[in-house]
């Protein structure tokens, strides 16, 4: 079964009814549709292979203006006959003319044909007109039928006129009531496929497709049968507005972290090297700080550290010789201008450093951030130049390595839905001990899901924090990729509208 527009159905069922092969001209007349509507419907039907369209030469029959008049008011001889019958079967010509209502110009014609058709006998002496056979009913001849056939029609093709009626064409042509001409016409022919569809179309035309406000208000709907639909037919697609799948996922992560008692932190995209590196005990000549490790801002080059004079002094001393942290330090000459260098933040840990520096927190405290981070990577299947990091800190007097593992285990279960977890030694310049977390999920396997550690004393002491701080970060991109079944990390920032539209909401 196939869906039709009303016009398509009309044309197709007309074709079926009119013998399968019909000219456009006739379809226009029969359907009462406009030329263009018929053509449009015809083309659609042709595409669906329900009909063929081709050109064919054809004889077209049209009524003359006199013919049209007679088609509407009957032939003059019929009118004269009716008046004779009305006058009792016999009457004088003048009386009969008067009764017939014929106009002057048709009187002679009427008399001629009524005699020729042997309907009446004319007594010319007495000018008396009488029925030939008063007992015989005079039926409409083919000429009259043909005229009536034209009633309300535009020119018709010869082929569409039945053979009986065709015999009257000559007579009427001679009477100049109609004329014929040779023309080329577009023909529509129904195919077998179309014939099959027509069978169903018959049913359809008897029912109402669209329930309209008018039908409801007028109560007409009660008398109508609403057409059944093919509910399995394919339909046009609807695309809803949706949240971006990755942002939706981050929302979920954010909610989980809030539920676990973490407070969200934020900071600016452009960051001071001091917070991205120095405060995190990353030496100033560390490779991560070079142009291939971090994006540097062209102009302005340097930010303002004047609000952190005391912290800067302590961090400087810690880098150079360990200061009061119990460390040897990195053994190099610290540069304050390097500390002021503006960069795009390379990790979210700078936000933790800022939070600790602010001292604007209680003990215990838990913080997290979802931060856009930047690194000068060549973008490919596994690297982005710009990505999101989810990380944070836990601050409490009693924290130990066991708590660190506990926090990671909790994340593995709550965020990644892991079945099993595994810890490995890891390295970050700012944490010691450092732990890598791998999570195992059925159907996905093992993934490295997080990196973490306890902030080194070289980090916490200069920032004035006297209690242990656990720092953690989650491999959120890989988790999202696994859950969404994507293997190319660039799809997180997918530029495909189609992918976003089709992506299931999970």
């Amino acid at each position, binding site marked *: 079964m196939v869906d039709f527009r009303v016009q398509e159905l009309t044309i197709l069922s007309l074709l079926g009814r009119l013998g399968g092969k019909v000219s456009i001209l006739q379809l226009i007349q029969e359907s009462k549709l406009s030329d263009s509507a018929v053509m449009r419907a015809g083309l659609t039907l042709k595409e669906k292979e329900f009909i063929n369209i081709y050109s064919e030469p054809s004889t077209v029959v049209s009524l003359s203006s006199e013919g049209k008049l007679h088609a509407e008011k009957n032939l003059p001889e019929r009118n004269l006959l009716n008046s004779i019958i009305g006058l009792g079967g016999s009457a004088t010509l003048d009386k009969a003319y008067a009764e017939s209502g014929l106009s002057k110009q048709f009187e002679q014609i009427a008399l001629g044909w009524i005699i020729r058709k042997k309907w009446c006998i004319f007594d010319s002496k007495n000018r008396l007109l009488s029925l030939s056979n008063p007992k015989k009913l005079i039926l409409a001849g083919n000429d009259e039928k043909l005229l009536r056939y034209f009633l309300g029609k535009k020119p018709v093709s010869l082929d569409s006129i039945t053979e009986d009626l065709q015999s009257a064409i000559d007579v009427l042509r001679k009477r100049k009531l109609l004329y014929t001409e040779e023309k080329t016409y577009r023909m529509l022919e129904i195919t077998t496929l179309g014939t099959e569809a027509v069978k169903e179309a018959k049913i359809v035309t008897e029912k109402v497709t669209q329930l309209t406000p008018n039908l409801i208000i007028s109560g007409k709907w009660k008398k109508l049968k609403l057409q059944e639909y093919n509910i399995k037919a394919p339909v046009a*697609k609807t*695309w809803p507005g949706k949240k*971006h799948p990755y*942002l939706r996922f981050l929302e979920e992560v954010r909610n989980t972290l*809030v539920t*676990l*008692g973490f*407070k*969200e932190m*934020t900071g*600016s995209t*452009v960051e*001071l090297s001091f917070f991205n590196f120095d405060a995190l005990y990353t030496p100033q*000549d560390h*490779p991560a700080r070079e*142009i291939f490790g971090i*994006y*540097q801002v*062209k102009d302005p080059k340097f*930010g303002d550290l004047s*609000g952190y004079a005391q912290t800067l002094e302590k961090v400087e001393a810690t880098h150079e010789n*360990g200061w009061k942290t119990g*460390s*040897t330090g990195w053994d*190099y000459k610290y540069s304050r201008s390097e500390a002021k260098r*503006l960069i795009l933040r390379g990790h979210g840990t700078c936000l933790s450093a800022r939070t600790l520096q602010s001292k604007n927190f209680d003990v*215990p405290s*838990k913080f997290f951030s979802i931060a*856009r981070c*930047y690194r000068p*990577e060549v*973008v490919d299947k596994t690297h982005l130049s*710009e990505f999101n990091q989810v990380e944070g800190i836990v601050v409490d007097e009693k924290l*130990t*390595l*066991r*708590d660190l*593992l*506990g*926090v*990671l*285990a909790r994340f593995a279960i709550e965020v990644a839905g892991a079945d099993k977890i*595994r*810890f*490995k*030694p*890891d*390295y970050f*310049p700012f944490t*010691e*001990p450092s732990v890598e977390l791998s999570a195992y999920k059925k159907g996905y396997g093992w993934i490295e899901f997080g990196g973490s550690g*306890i902030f080194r004393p*070289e980090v916490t002491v200069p920032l004035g924090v006297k209690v*242990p701080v656990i720092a953690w970060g989650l491999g959120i991109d890989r988790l999202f990729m696994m859950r969404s079944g994507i293997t190319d990390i660039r799809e997180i920032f*997918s*530029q*495909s*509208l*189609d992918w*976003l539209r089709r992506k299931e909401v999970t």
Partner: protein
Amino acid sequence: MPTIEVNYSELETLLGIELHDNMERLDEMLSYVKSEVKYFNKQENIVSVEIKDTNRPDLWSVEGLARGLRSYLKIEKGPRNYFVNTSIVEVNVSPTLKNIRPYIGCSIIKEIELTDNIIRGFMHLQDKLDQTYGRSRQKTSIGLYDFNQISAPLSYVAVKPSDFSFVPLGFEEKMTLSEILEKHPKGIEYGHIVKKNDTYPLLIDSKQKVLSFPPIINSNDLGRLTEKTRNLLIEVTGTMYQTTINTLNLVTLALIDRGGIAYSATVNYPEDKFYSFRNIVTPVFKSKTVRLDIEYTRKVLGLDLTAQKIADLLLIAGLGIEKINKSSVDVIVPCYRVDVMHQIDLIEDVAVAYGYNNIEPLWRDLPTTGSMLPNQHLKDVARELMVGLGYQETLNYTLTSQEKLFEKMNLERQKVVELVNPKIVTMACLRNWLLPSLLEFLGNNQSVAFPQKIFELGKVTLLDDLSETLTRDEYWLAGITTHPISSFTEVKSVLASFFMNLGVDWFLEKTSHSSFIEGRVGKIIVNKKEVGVIGEINPKVLENWNLENPAAAFEVNLHKILF
């Protein structure tokens, strides 16, 4: 993260165990030293190992990896002892070097058999040390020479760039130091390190033969090693004393592990208060003693460990025990463990030796209250409204180019946050408005069904003299609709609904904006302040982004409306 390639058979030999190509087992072993197998090329007999710890240069050779693993595998407990013979060479340092590259250390290795594998492995170590530990030769650089061709004593001097010439490694003719910086590939690569000074460092022997022009290049005569070379001179120059000595130690130890016999050199520094010492015998294989507090260890690890247990674990980690005290352990840290800066580094070694997976995780419910950022809820509401209005959310890069932000938008360039070191020209600055991102997105989706309606609620970064980073981030919202009959009316209706639902009073004022069609653009006013723009996109802009349908869009600063 250093990645090193090691010869698989050599690794087996040095470890003293057979691995039977079992990379999973090797990977597990390597996790003790924060390393993992990247790949195993059986045909070439090479294992590539990634070492996460950028501060453990002692692991960056097959010898060092084996040494590190053997203790954890309990094949060899405690630190390995190394011996160096007395000084056989003197090196005199010129006073003019103090502001250029003040430190040097030398050692001599005799009776070494330089197989192809050893040479290759050694070059690899030298390169890793130069690049990572030596910060691309800035901090330290290493040179190796055929000791038999050198006439002691050596002089480490500073000379004018045009005063000296020699044949650099890999070349056939003599070049002055300045010519080397111009023509030699290493001169071009590392020249910036010395160029800032008027004089350049040079190492020569008593016959005025050049050993090297540190940290650029060795001489072709003395600095070329062959399989026939048996006796080597190693030289490390640097800007920091301890790092210079550490590097020399690491290189010398790797060669001792390969069967060489080490001899010292005496470095004579000038009488200058810049130097706190005069004569130093190098290498310096002196271990240091670090006192590890037992209570501190327990507190960090959350484990009830006895002093004896801690000492046992430290031995497994390859450290030595001088003595166990009442409340502390005196730990011997061998010279090659340059990463130990603080007790905490030893505590981690205790934990690794104990086994992370043998420690029971502990989750304590700390009395903290979680919360999102105060404006997070409003951001989510704004996104929800746009979604409800039928707009698909997109996520775009904030890194972009001035061409995209301005030229393609038919605007004059403005000052934005530009990068010194973009990777590609299309990601060279931070965006200061969102619509270019959305237009680019649409340009990539012209074959997808219309209508297309998308939005982004995202960050833009603006210059701001009052901020300590001289910039500030703001959250903006932009929406755009494109299809054959998209119009100003359509998008205005969306904006009206958006504002109505947020309870924001707003109106439009006529404006001119060359990204939009003249007469079909307005500025959005809320609380008497301009907060954004709305209009039909200029066909010129549509053309620039390859959009085939008309588009209408708006962009608003949420900070001025909601936050």
